[in-house]
């Protein structure tokens, strides 16, 4: 029988039925789910899918925040050899229509009224959609009359009946699983054009589990039942799927679901996870919140924190030179600082027990990573993408090189194309192609099986890989100079006051930037400096704020070469948003959409005699 994520959960339920598989906060209590209950629910849900006529290869979509039912549905789908399609909770109705119709989804698991409404709004475009199973009955049950709607409890009851009538049906279907079965479609965010559905097979995922979980490619030493992690990033993204579903099934890591993305910081403090994965935005936000809270602390606390953060900075510097390991000197300084600041600080930000922290999915400024290293959070940048099941490179404890994404995982092939500088990978984790898009597939994977990542990289010291930028984002100035905008953007975003920075200048004489402020921090700063403001736009366009940003831009410019200096910038008049089509579901800026939307702003920066 083929080993899958599902058989792993089954085996774990047999071996440690009373062990904790996951927790979710309900009525103020972290409700525990044991492995036995997890497996039992997966089986029932699997029977329910069979009862609704799901055949091998059918698509089941899940449109929900991270919660227990996400995992039940995902595993039940894989158990009956169907494919899971994850939707971002923030996907607006038109995108929901595209994803559901493109994937040909037959059953949609929708979280609540909000998500059900999105699907119902476009239901006429979705001839394949047969059932919508909703998890939260509020506002739906006994109000909506669409015959396709089915409440989760009724769905499970259906499964129970099917289970009683056809015992073993799900297990029989599972036994037929083959390594080549596609188990999930992961739609990539698509900064250009519509999202593409990457097909990951059972063997892709098994290779990923072997490399990243069992061999400890991401977390070394490898994760175990003693580890605890918080699940808060969208589960339809490959990174969170690895950390939540696959770490859980393969290594028995206890997963705790955050109440929402807004409560992550307080949930972190409650859960105190041992393994923590975050995207740059999360780390930047934690850093900004530390700075805000310190700025408004009482004088003694502020003085102490300022001193020990300076010490932490020194510790971080030394550790960076030392591959991320402590030296006796930093150990001593850390021990003292632990008493006065680091222990309490880490406790407050929920990282007291973090033994391994990782940043990935987007480039991050090295200063941010250094801060976390300095206060004692072992931070590692990792690199991977959906198309290679996130298997590419990772920094390993003791061998960290700041500014790089680490070394290629053992047993995989990774090379950098001599001509284009593009990073290519080849290993069993390379995906089976894009769903219903052979053209894009042939562009991504060449005849020799090399995956073209679209990222430009270079070797550092022959062992570590440094990502320069996305290939299509590289700016070639009018002077013919190649510039990586993301490096400059991240240097800008490392400031707690700047949330978005978009560096422009392709085929132009000089670089310019569109800058979006971080409302919380700048608002706090304005309040402390007695600058009155009303809206986001009003605040962003205040002279004092522009002056503040100018200062940050000047600082960043000083660190880059003359041609890489940002000559002019403009403030974004609004916060960028997924629903307005400015950001992707993973909060990445859609450059094309931005250039179009803020065309006037951009042109004003390149106007001849314009006042800067």
């Amino acid at each position, binding site marked *: 029988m083929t080993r899958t994520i599902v058989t792993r959960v089954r085996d774990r339920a047999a071996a440690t039925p009373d062990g904790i598989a996951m927790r979710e906060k309900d009525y103020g209590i972290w409700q525990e789910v044991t492995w036995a209950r997890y497996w039992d629910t997966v089986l029932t849900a699997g029977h329910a899918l069979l009862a609704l006529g799901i055949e091998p290869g059918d698509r089941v979509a899940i449109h929900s925040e991270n919660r227990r039912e996400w995992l039940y549905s995902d595993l039940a789908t894989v158990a009956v050899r169907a494919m899971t399609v994850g939707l971002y909770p923030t996907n607006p109705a038109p995108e929901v229509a595209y994803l559901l119709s493109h994937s040909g989804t037959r059953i949609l698991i929708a979280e609540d009224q909000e998500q059900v409404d999105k699907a119902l709004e476009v239901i006429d475009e979705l001839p394949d959609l047969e059932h919508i199973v909703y998890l939260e009955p509020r506002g739906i049950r006994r109000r909506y009359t669409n015959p396709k709607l089915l409440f989760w409890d009724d769905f499970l009851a259906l499964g129970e009946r099917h289970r009683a009538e056809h015992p073993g049906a799900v297990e029989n279907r599972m036994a037929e699983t083959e390594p080549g079965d596609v188990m999930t479609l992961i739609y990539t965010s698509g900064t250009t054009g519509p999202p593409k559905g990457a097909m990951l097979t059972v063997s892709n995922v098994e290779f990923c589990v072997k490399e990243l979980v069992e061999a400890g490619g991401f977390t070394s030493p490898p994760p175990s039942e003693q580890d605890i992690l918080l699940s808060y990033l969208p589960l339809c993204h490959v990174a969170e799927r690895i950390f939540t579903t696959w770490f859980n099934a393969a290594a028995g890591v206890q997963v705790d679901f955050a109440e929402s993305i807004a409560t992550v910081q307080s949930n972190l403090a409650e859960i105190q996870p041992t393994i923590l994965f975050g995207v740059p935005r999360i780390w930047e936000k934690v850093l900004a919140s530390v700075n805000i*809270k310190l700025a408004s602390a009482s004088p003694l606390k502020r003085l102490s924190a300022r001193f020990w953060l300076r010490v932490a900075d020194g510790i971080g510097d030394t550790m960076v030179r030392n591959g991320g390991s402590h030296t006796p000197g930093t150990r001593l300084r850390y021990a003292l600082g632990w008493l006065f600041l680091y222990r309490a600080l880490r406790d407050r930000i929920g990282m007291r*027990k973090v033994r391994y922290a990782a940043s990935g999915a987007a480039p991050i400024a090295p200063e941010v990573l250094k801060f976390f290293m300095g206060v004692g959070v072992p931070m590692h940048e990792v690199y991977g993408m959906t198309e290679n099941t996130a298997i590419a490179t990772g920094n390993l404890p003791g061998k960290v090189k700041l500014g790089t994404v680490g070394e290629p995982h053992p047993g995989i092939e990774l090379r950098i194309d001599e001509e284009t500088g593009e990073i290519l990978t080849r290993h069993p984790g390379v995906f089976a192609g894009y769903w219903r898009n052979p053209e894009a597939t042939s562009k991504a994977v060449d005849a020799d099986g090399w995956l073209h990542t679209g990222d430009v990289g270079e070797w550092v010291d022959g062992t570590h890989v440094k990502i320069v930028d996305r290939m299509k984002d590289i700016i070639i100035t009018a002077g013919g100079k190649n510039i990586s905008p993301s490096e400059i953007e991240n240097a800008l975003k490392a400031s707690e006051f700047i949330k978005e920075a978009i560096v422009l200048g392709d085929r132009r004489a000089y670089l310019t930037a569109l800058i979006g402020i971080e409302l919380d921090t700048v608002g706090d700063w304005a309040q402390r400096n007695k600058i009155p403001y009303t809206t986001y736009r009003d605040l962003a366009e205040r002279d004092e704020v522009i002056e503040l940003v100018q200062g940050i831009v000047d600082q960043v410019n000083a660190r880059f070469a003359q041609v890489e200096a940002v000559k002019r910038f403009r403030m974004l008049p609004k916060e960028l948003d997924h629903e307005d089509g400015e950001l992707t579901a993973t909060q990445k800026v859609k450059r094309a959409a931005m250039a179009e939307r803020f065309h006037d702003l951009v042109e004003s920066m390149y106007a001849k005699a314009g006042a800067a």
Partner: protein
Amino acid sequence: MTAPVRQRRPRQLSGRPGLYTSYAQQLRLLNTRPKLLTVSAIVLLAFVLPWLVADETLSLLGVAMAASIGAIGLNIVTGYAGQVSLGHAFFLAIGAYTASAVSGAPDDDTIGFGVTNVLVWLLAAGLVAAVFGVLVAPLATRLRGLYLAIVTLGLVFLGEHIFAEWQALTGGAGVGRPGPVPVLFGVELNSSGDVLTSDQKLYLLMLASLVVFGLLARNLARSKVGRAFAAIRDRDIAAEVIGVNLTRYKVIAFAVSSFYAGCAGALVYTITGFIEPSSFNLLLSVQYIAMVLIGGVATISGSIMGAFFITLLPALTRQLPTVAPFISEDASSPLNVFQVETVLYGLLIIGFLIFEPRGLYGIWIRIRNYWKAWPFSY
């Protein structure tokens, strides 16, 4: 085939005080290790104290502990349930006289039944006081705030008159009668033995009683009843709307409160050994109000802190003449310690109400939060 699904008992993860996997964990009295250790240390210290300090101090501490029980009682009705009561002195008197009557010598001038077992007369004192509490409670269902305070004030004056006149029970004004006679498991607690002096024995009795009464009150406060009290205090109409039976819970509040007051009265006068009827006056009620306000409204530990503060205050003011010679120890002089004491009560109550409405307990919370929030301020 159905897999056996068992329910396991939730357990707490180490080092994660915020991760509650059951309501029982969330409601635990000593929910963190530091709290458990500190409370154990304090209780342990209190139990070895009789061998460490002088007997006079012990008897003073004993009175403070007995007063703590009374303060806890007042805090239940006034702090938790929000029913202002100025009649606490009346319930203390009921307890004190019941206990003395039950335990007093039958052949004495005053009423006495000769049952000297502490457990018996303590329970009797509490129950009789509780009965009076239940009789008063219906007033509270009709009145609130200032009106209730005035009515309960009336109780004190009624009591003062009755106790002054009922000489068979109280010995009459200016004469008084002996306090309750404490015998526990055949040991006479109010006379020194071979092992322990009477002060040590009484101190231990008070300490044990305080631990028991304190725990009971703390448990009551976090139970359904306690939450009903808090609901009534915060807004009685809203409480009624969400299904709290006002009459029932106000009666419970008065009954429990007077039960505590009765027991406290009995215990206090066991130590002093003599009851003077005129001492159950308005000032005594005000002292207990001061304990609650200075200690901390709606907290058990605050009640104890307040009671200790108010009980030990006279001992401190008596020392004043040595540092400030213009204050006299003679009650007939223009500025004497007794006047200073009264002035201090007033100033303290005003000061606490204005500057630290949550009392001594509030000061402690402030200190705790300062360190708990480190390195931030909130």
